[in-house]
């Protein structure tokens, strides 16, 4: 009985170590897998992905500092641990001493770590958070582009205000799968020019405000190249803001970063980061009424 138990534990350990030590599949190529039939831009290697946002370098800096700091702590504590194992191993003629050590070095290194962590939090993270999350352009700010994003199992919907710049009314009772996923009230004069798309288009160099909400469960709006990740919660409207760099033109992916059901993995959308001109052209194209469909024309 005990033997089988041991064998089981060993098997699990062997399996785990095999999987942990095996090189990750993604590390083989740096480009994102071509999963949607569309070429995705950006580098996605073992390090941080391409950053196309204006605030992103600050987040990357915090991530870098934390990693270096953790590496120093890991190596330092690890070396000390190994030293203690060897230096204070059981030997004949030695007695265990249960009294604590009163050394200045250990005390000051502890204080040093605490101070460094405080600096990380107060000096870097909090100002960054304040900038990214608190300084959001107002709803009527004409310099910003406002986009309403609705998550649902398992898709993202993007809504633009259209030429008049004002969002029309919407309500759950108008929701219709396929033709009206965001429940727009087309009888509202402000709503008849609203644009709803399954693609996320944004211009570069312009502050974007995204209002996030969800139709069903909690999702998370995650755009790694924009260094944006925010939960979407049903019944709540959560704003986030960012600006894409002028050099960031390309096609990227929006993902859901919150396990939301059995097809969570396929909850993605394409993000087209465009120059203002290309974006305006797309808006005009997307704003046209849907074409009449006649299947006889197809074959």
């Amino acid at each position, binding site marked *: 009985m005990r033997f089988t138990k041991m064998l089981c534990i060993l098997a699990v350990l062997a399996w785990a170590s095999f999987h942990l030590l095996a090189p990750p599949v993604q590390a083989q190529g740096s480009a994102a897998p071509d999963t*949607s*039939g*569309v070429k995705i831009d950006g580098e996605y290697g073992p390090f941080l992905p391409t950053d196309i946002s204006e605030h992103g370098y600050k987040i990357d800096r915090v991530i870098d500092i934390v990693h270096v700091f953790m590496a120093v702590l890991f190596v330092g504590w690890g070396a000390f641990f190994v030293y203690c194992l060897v230096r204070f191993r059981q030997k004949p003629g030695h007695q265990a001493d249960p009294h604590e050590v009163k050394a200045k070095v250990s005390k000051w290194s502890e204080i040093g770590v605490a101070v460094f962590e405080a600096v990380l939090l107060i000096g870097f993270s909090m100002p960054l958070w304040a900038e990214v999350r608190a300084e959001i352009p107002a709803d009527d700010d004409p310099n910003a582009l406002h986009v309403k994003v609705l998550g*649902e*199992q*398992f*898709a*993202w919907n993007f809504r633009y205000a259209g030429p008049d710049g004002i969002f029309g009314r919407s309500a759950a009772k108008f929701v*219709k*799968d*396929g*033709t009206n*996923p965001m429940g727009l009230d087309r009888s509202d004069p402000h709503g008849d020019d609203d644009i*709803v*798309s*399954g*693609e996320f288009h944004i211009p570069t160099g312009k502050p974007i405000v995204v209002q996030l909400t969800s139709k069903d469960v909690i999702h998370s709006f995650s755009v790694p190249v924009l260094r944006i990740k925010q939960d979407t919660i049903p019944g709540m409207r959560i704003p986030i803001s960012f600006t894409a760099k002028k050099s960031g033109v390309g096609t990227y992916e929006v993902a859901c970063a919150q396990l939301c*059901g*059995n*097809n969570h993995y*396929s909850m993605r*959308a*394409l993000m087209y980061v465009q120059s203002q001109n290309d974006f305006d052209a797309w808006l005009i194209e997307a704003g046209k*009424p*849907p*074409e*009449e*469909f*006649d*299947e006889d024309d*197809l074959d």
Partner: protein
Amino acid sequence: MRCSKNTITVIATGFILAIGTTAAMAEKTTVRGKVIFKGNAAKFKRTKLDTSKDPKCKMSKKSIGTYDVILNKKTDPITIRNVLVSIKSGLADRVFPTPNTPVTLTQYGCEYDPHVFGIMEGQELKILNGDETNHNIHFLPKNNDQYNFSQPKKDLEKGKTITLDAEAPFRVKCDVHPWMGCHIGVFKHPFYDVTDKLGKFEISGMGAGSYTLELWHETFGTMTADFTVAKGQTTDLDIEFEVK
């Protein structure tokens, strides 16, 4: 125990059915006609569906159309497609055999084919994926099991086979592509049809008698129509579906 009891029932019903169908076949009774749209047709326009969420959908079909209302505006009178026409009453307690051939439901171009269909209780329903993408089929019935499974790979051979109990038409949707939907009606008899591109239906083999048809449409709702058919005859029945 349960098994043997079932076998006996199956054999017994099979025997009764065999007699029933041969008799009905001999009579060659048919009801056929079209479902005519009565209302303001300009209100219903079929447009292209936005499938940009998954670019792989376009790999199978260039574009797909909305399906909530499909009117055939090319003929006069205007007819309605995808109306599920079935015999609602008049069959008394007759029992009918379950066909051995399965009904196939294919996901292709990120839409369901067929979009509306009938199937007999216990008849096999084979669900296939013809796309290079993942579909998650999700049944939304009242009585049947809420089937909910993924078909992540293109599979036009094996697919997944299920059977259903009799139930009024219910919706089936895809959880990956929110625009994807279809409807299934499950019957205890084989007398049902779905109106085609020209809005036509044809049901035969029910035997002489007086019956009530039920017409079901996913947007317009239901209505009924009575008809009588004599032995060896065909009844032509054009039905006006009034839409407010």
